[in-house]
C-alpha cells in the first residue's frame, strides 16, 4: 500500500521502531531525511562562529543517527535510501513531491519550535497522507 515512506528522522526510538514495523508490514522502501529545526535554520544564515560550531555538531549527530537507522533497517531487511536534503516543516511538501512518496512520517517533537503547528496550506497540498507520531 505504501511503496515509499518518507521519514523525517526524529530522535525518538519508538518512532524509529514504528517506521520499521510499518515498512515491514507494507514491504516499503523508507526514504530517510533529516529535519532542520528552526533555530538551526537561523544559525545557518548567521556568522557567529560558536553558533555555527554548535549547529555543525547537531548536523553531525543527525547524519550519524540517519545512517545508524539505515544500518538497522538494512539488517531488518527493509529497503531504505537516504536523502541529501534536510527537511524543514516548510519544505516537506517539496520533498514529498520530488521523492513521490506515498506516506510521510513526522514526529510531533519536530514541530515543537513551531508551536506544534503545521503551515496552514500544507495539508491540503500534500500529495500523500501524513502521520504525526507523538511518542512519549
Amino acid at each position, binding site marked *: 500500500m505504501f511503496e515509499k515512506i518518507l521519514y523525517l528522522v526524529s530522535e525518538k526510538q519508538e518512532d524509529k521502531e514504528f517506521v520499521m514495523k510499518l515498512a515491514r508490514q507494507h514491504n516499503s*522502501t*523508507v*526514504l530517510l531525511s533529516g529535519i532542520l529545526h528552526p533555530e538551526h535554520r537561523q544559525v545557518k*544564515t548567521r*556568522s557567529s562562529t560558536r553558533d555555527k560550531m554548535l549547529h*555543525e*555538531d547537531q*548536523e*553531525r549527530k543527525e*547524519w*550519524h543517527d*540517519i*545512517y*545508524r537507522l539505515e*544500518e538497522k*533497517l*538494512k539488517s531488518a531487511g527493509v*529497503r*531504505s*535510501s*537516504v*536523502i*541529501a*536534503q*534536510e527537511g524543514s516543516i*516548510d*519544505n516537506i*511538501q*517539496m*520533498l514529498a*513531491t*520530488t*521523492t*513521490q512518496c506515498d506516506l510521510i512520517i513526522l514526529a510531533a517533537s519536530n514541530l515543537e519550535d513551531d508551536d506544534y503547528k503545521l503551515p496552514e*496550506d*500544507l495539508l*491540503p*497540498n500534500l*500529495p500523500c497522507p501524513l502521520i504525526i507520531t507523538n511518542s512519549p
Partner: protein
Amino acid sequence: MIKLTKFLHPELAFDCPVITNQKAVFQFVARRLAEQRLINNQEVLVEEFMKREQQGSTGVGHGIALPHVATEAVNQIVVAVVRLNQPMEWDAVDGKPVHLLVMIIAPPDQRKLYLQVLAEVARSLNQPTIRDKVLKARHPAQAVRIIARPPHEGFIKRNRRLFIFLLVVAVIFVLARIVLPTIQLPASDIYKDYTKFNFAPWLFRQELTITLFLAMILGTLLFWRFRVAIAGAGLGILLAAGVMDLETTVRFMSIPTILFIMSMMIIVRWLQNIGVFRFIVIKAMEKVHGVPWQLLLILMGSSVILGGFADEVSAILVTFGLALEVTRRTKAPLVPYLLCLVFATNVGSALTLIGNPVGIYIAFAGKLSFEHFLRWATPVSAIAALIIMGLCLLIYRRHFFGFRYKLDFAELRKTTETVDPTRLRTGIITFVTVICLIALHRRIEVWLNLGESTALVAVALLTLGFIVFHEQERGRLLVARGVDWWTLLFFMFLFANAACLEYTGVTTKLGYIIHHVANAFTHARAGAVGVTSTTAVLVLWFTGITSGFVDNLPIVAATVPIVKDLIRIGLPHASILWWALLFGGCFGGNMTVIGSTANLVAVGAFERATGQSIRFTEWIKVGIIITVVSLSIATVALLLQVRMAP
C-alpha cells in the same frame, strides 16, 4: 569530530569512462583499488555493493550517490571518489541521474568510525555550496579536496552584502550632502514658508533622513528578514539625532492606518479559516464543467475580486491552492496558472480601498473614501483586469484551448462539505456586511458628524470585536496568528520614516524638482493641466517600474508626501496623482517575481508543491508585457480623466 582529510585522498579519485551499468562501475572502482592494494577481493566488494543497491538506492539526490558497505574485503576504511563521464540512472530518491559517487568501504570491526565518516561525508555534501563546487570540479582530485576540506569563506566574503550595503549608504550620504544644498526653494508665495529648508540645521536633517530612508529600501532588498530591525534602527537614529521628537514620531506612524490594516488582517484570516473564499470559488468553478480556458478565467476573475475585496495574499492563497488541485488531477502545467493568477491578483488589488496596503495608505494619506475608489480606481482596474485576462489566454493559448479536463468536481466539493454550514453562513453575512459598511463609511461619517476615515476604522474594529467574541477561545489564537505583526511593525516604522521626509523638507524639494521637470516636458499650450498630466504619467511609471524591483509600499510611502506637496502648491486637478500612485504601486508588482507579496507567496507555494523553482527570466518575459499593458491602460485612463479630478 573526525577529519575527512584522513580518509579522502586525491589518489583515490577516478574519472570513470563511459559505462552503462552499476556493476561495471563497481568493477572499475574495485579494479583501481586493487591496483593500489587497498582491497583483497574484488569480486566480494562488487557483490557487496550490488547487494547494497538492491536494499535501496544509495543515490542521495542532486546527482550524487554514496555507495557504502562494511565488508571483509578491506582492512581499513577506504573512501573513493568517482566522477562518471556519462551521468547514470541510479534510482536516486529525486529520480535524477548520478554524476558523482563517493564510495565508502569499511571493515566490519570499524562500524562506529565507518558511520562517522559516512555522516561527515553526507553532512559535507548536504551543503548546497559545497555540493555545487564538487559537481563542477575540474577533476576528481579537486572534488576530493573540496569534500575533505570545504573552503571556509573569509570574513569579507561572508559579509560582502553588509559591506556593499554600508558602502552604498555612505555614497548616498555623500551625494545627499552634495546635491541637497544645491536645491534651493525660491522665496515665492508658494514656498515662502519653506525657505527654512534651504539652511542649517534642516540641510543636515534632510541629508540624514534621505540617507536612512534609502538605506531602509536597500536594506529590505538585501536583508529582507531583517527589515524590521533596519527600519527600527533608522527611526532610532532619527530620534537620537534630534531630527524628530517622540510625539511627532508616534503621529507619523499613522496609527489609524495600522489599526485598519490589523483589523482587516484578522477579518480576512477568519473568513479564510472558515472557508468562505474557497467555498465561493469552488461554486464558481463548478459552472464551467472542466473547460480549461473557462476554468482559468473563473480563477483569474476570483483572484481579481478577492484581491480587491479581501486582500492580495488571501486571494492568491485560495485561487492558487485550487489551481494546484486542478493541475494535480489533470496533469496540466502549473506555471501558466501561477503567473496568470498572480497578475490578476495584483491588478485586482487596486480595485478598492481594502485590497492592498498601498491602497489603504493612500486612502488615509489622501483622505480618500471607498466611494472615491469606486469612482476612480474600480473602472480602470476592472478594464485592466479584463484585458490582462484576455492577454494571458492569448499568451498561454496552447495550454487552455482545444481540449477539456477530465475533472471530478465531486472530489473538490467534498473539501467544502466539511465546512460547518452555520459558520459559513455567518462568515458570508459578515463579509457582505463589512464590505457594505466600508463602502458607505464616508456617508456614515457625514451622518454621524465624525472625522474623516473614522467610520472606516470603527467598522473594522467593531467587526474585529464581533469575530473575537464569536470565536470565543479561538479568538485569542486568531488575534495572535491572524495578524502579521512583523509586517505591521515594519509598516509603522516605514510610515514614520517616510513622513520624516516630509517633515524635514526633502519631499518639498523633490516635489519642486518634479514640478520643474514636468514643466519642461510639457508643451506650453497644454498649460497647467498639461503639467499635471505629465506629472501623473511620471508618478505612474516611476512607481510602476520601481515597484517591480523594490517592495511597493516604501516607494509609495516616499511618494505620498511629494503628491501632498504638489497638491499644496496648487497644481490643478492634482488629486489624479493619488490614482497614478495606486496604479503604479499595484500594477508594477507584476513585473518581477519579487514585485509584490502575492508573487512571493505564490512562488513559495509553487516551489513547495513541485520542488522546482521559477526562473527570474521566465517570469519577467511575461511580467514585463503585462506590466507595460496595464500601466498603459492606466496612463490612458488618467490622461482622459485628468480634467475631471478635483
